[in-house]
């Protein structure tokens, strides 16, 4: 494999050294499934984004693309079956931080690089990961006997996209992935734990409006009405000022933001566009600098990878609620 020169920015900012070269596959795939993986229910048919795939047995050589996919496989205890991961949006969350799955690529790997690992299962967090200009079409993998799965929350066509993502969709994906990986008990346990954690989240933003500021400076790109941002805002009681746009994210003019005058601003924090940088943009732009939320610094911060459907959503909701509770939202402080 050719050595890939790593971009300076990501190299400087992404903590944890990433292997510049994929490790070659270590021999053939083990023929028998791990003792931990349950083989009941196989062969299994799963349909995601309108495409059905069949698994004869729990996959043993898994390739994941996007953080959300990698993290779910790790959370279900199947990390030892990961032969390659790609397109990480940031560091692993604290509870999975000691896992060190093999890194195949920083972004979309080429189909050949994926096939070179001889995977039996490719799991993508975005529909576009498995396309001709991504890691290859799903149909190609299916023809080669490699099962494929795309996070149902990320389906783009109207008939498959969740019309308003809820935590039920997130938990359904966890449960289904549990069945696919032959780890149904781990999935049940994880869902139960997260349900309890979600039930305990205090809707600290009740009665407040909020802007979910994801990226952009001249024209901000914000969380709209039907995706993970809306779901997280619902969980903490915040009313999204862009809820009327029937999309997962949308571009919104600063004028519209100022006109809707949010009580709170959610800043998405990522290595390439930090929450701090967004604060600077908001203070520098004369239109937003006049907003009470900016003047009084009513900001809460969410990690970028938490803004996609996955195991991070519930912890992120709890974290947002705690941050909101710590803000002085105009009520008398006891």
């Amino acid at each position: 494999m050719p050595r890939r020169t790593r971009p300076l920015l990501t190299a400087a900012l992404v903590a944890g050294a990433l292997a510049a070269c994929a490790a070659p596959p270590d021999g053939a795939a083990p023929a028998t499934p791990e003792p931990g993986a349950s083989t009941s229910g196989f062969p299994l048919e799963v349909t995601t984004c309108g495409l059905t795939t069949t698994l004869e047995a729990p996959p043993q050589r898994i390739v994941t693309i996007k953080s959300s996919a990698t993290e779910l496989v790790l959370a279900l205890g199947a990390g030892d079956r990961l032969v390659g991961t790609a397109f990480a949006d940031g560091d692993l969350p604290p509870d999975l931080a000691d896992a060190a799955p093999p890194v195949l690529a920083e972004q979309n790997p080429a189909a050949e690089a994926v096939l070179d690992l001889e995977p039996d299962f490719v799991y993508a967090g975005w529909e576009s990961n498995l396309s001709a200009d991504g890691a290859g079409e799903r149909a190609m993998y299916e023809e080669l006997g490699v099962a494929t799965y795309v996070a149902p929350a990320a389906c783009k066509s109207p008939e498959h996209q969740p019309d308003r993502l809820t935590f039920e969709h997130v938990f359904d994906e966890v449960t289904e992935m549990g069945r696919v990986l032959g780890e149904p008990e781990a999935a049940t346990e994880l869902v139960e734990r997260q349900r309890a954690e979600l039930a305990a989240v205090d809707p600290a933003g009740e009665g407040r409006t909020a802007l979910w500021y994801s990226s952009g400076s001249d024209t901000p790109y914000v969380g709209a009405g039907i995706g993970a941002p809306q779901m997280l805002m619902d969980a903490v009681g915040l009313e999204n000022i862009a809820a009327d746009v029937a999309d997962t994210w949308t571009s919104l003019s600063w004028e519209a933001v100022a006109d809707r005058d949010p009580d709170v601003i959610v800043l998405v924090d990522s290595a390439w566009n930090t929450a701090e940088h967004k604060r600077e943009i908001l203070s520098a732009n004369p239109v937003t600098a006049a907003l009470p939320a900016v003047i009084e610094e009513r900001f809460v911060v969410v990690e970028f990878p938490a803004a996609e459907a996955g195991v991070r959503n519930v912890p992120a909701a709890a974290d947002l609620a705690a941050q909101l509770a710590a803000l002085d939202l105009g009520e008398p402080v006891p």
Partner: protein
Amino acid sequence: MTGTAAGRAGTRRATRRPGAAGGRGPDGVSGTGGTGGRHGARTGTVAVVLLVLLVATATWAVTVGPAGITPAQVWTSAWHELCSLAARGAAVCGPDPLTTIERAIVWDGRAPRVVGAAVVGAGLAVCGAVMQALTRNPLADPYLLGVSSGASVGAVAVLVLGVSVLLPVAAFVGALGALVLTLALATGRGGGLSPVRTVLAGVAVAQACSAAVSIVIFTSATGDSYREVLSWLLGSLGGTTWNETLLALGALAVVGTFLVAQGRALDAFTFGDVSAAALGVDVRRTRWLLLVAVALLAGVLVSISGSIGFVGLVLPHAVRLLVGARHHRLLPLAAIAGAVFLLLADTAARSVLAPQELPVGVLTAAIGAPVFAVLLRRGAR
């Protein structure tokens, strides 16, 4: 469209090499062929109509936007602002009808963007007209010397690689770099700049720059940072500040005045170098000077708005169809027409899908192409 016999003959006399882009002058697109006198009479009418349109469009554009502020409130507020500037008391000025946020929306958000759109539109039309004359290529546009692709390299360096310079500054530096490179490539042994070499050098530099931009985006654009790059590459007037607007206005005033003053030389260039020399123009020196002036102005514009297509390419032709090809008339009118046009397009861009915004480049083509088609057909009768 000078349409005079001398003009046509001059055009034919010009040296034509195989593969030369555009053997005819910029008037080659039109067949109106009126006399200078008729155009002269029409110029006054066109100028008045365009100026009225500009003032009307600008005042209307400030009242358009997603925030529910009525035109009446905007007018009252404008009176209040001007009156306060003149330091009159509240008794004279009356209360400000707008809240602090509304005032910021109108006077810091919309107003600089409206003026900015007008200035950028005017500048692009002027640059396009001059480039078409200097290269004798009807397909020339302000970005011909690679300034927009150079600016993109600067912008991407900031947006993707995190170089900590102000974006407009980086874009301008990139534009200058591309300009220097293009001129270095195009300059012949004797220091002359042949139109064909200039166009080809510009193409080469633009391609190299866009390859660099693509490589950077492809290897380094993380998460959704590519969205910002895309909006910049498509051209956008979103987030235009007063500082940027005033800077562009200054550049337009200085360079524009110079270009209009060079009107006669530009007319001579449309007949070809030989004729221009015969008319007493120092061809080599003047072409250098004019190219650099135009590219500098285009560099300033592109650093503020990204590369907005169509305006600089088509508006000069449209105005030529109306008032002929004499540059002392063409340039000022193209400026006003460009201002009105981009102002309309940008106002549509921010209001058609409100609260979302369309890239203005999409609308310049959507509005401009049919308008130009009508003018073209009328000219062909």
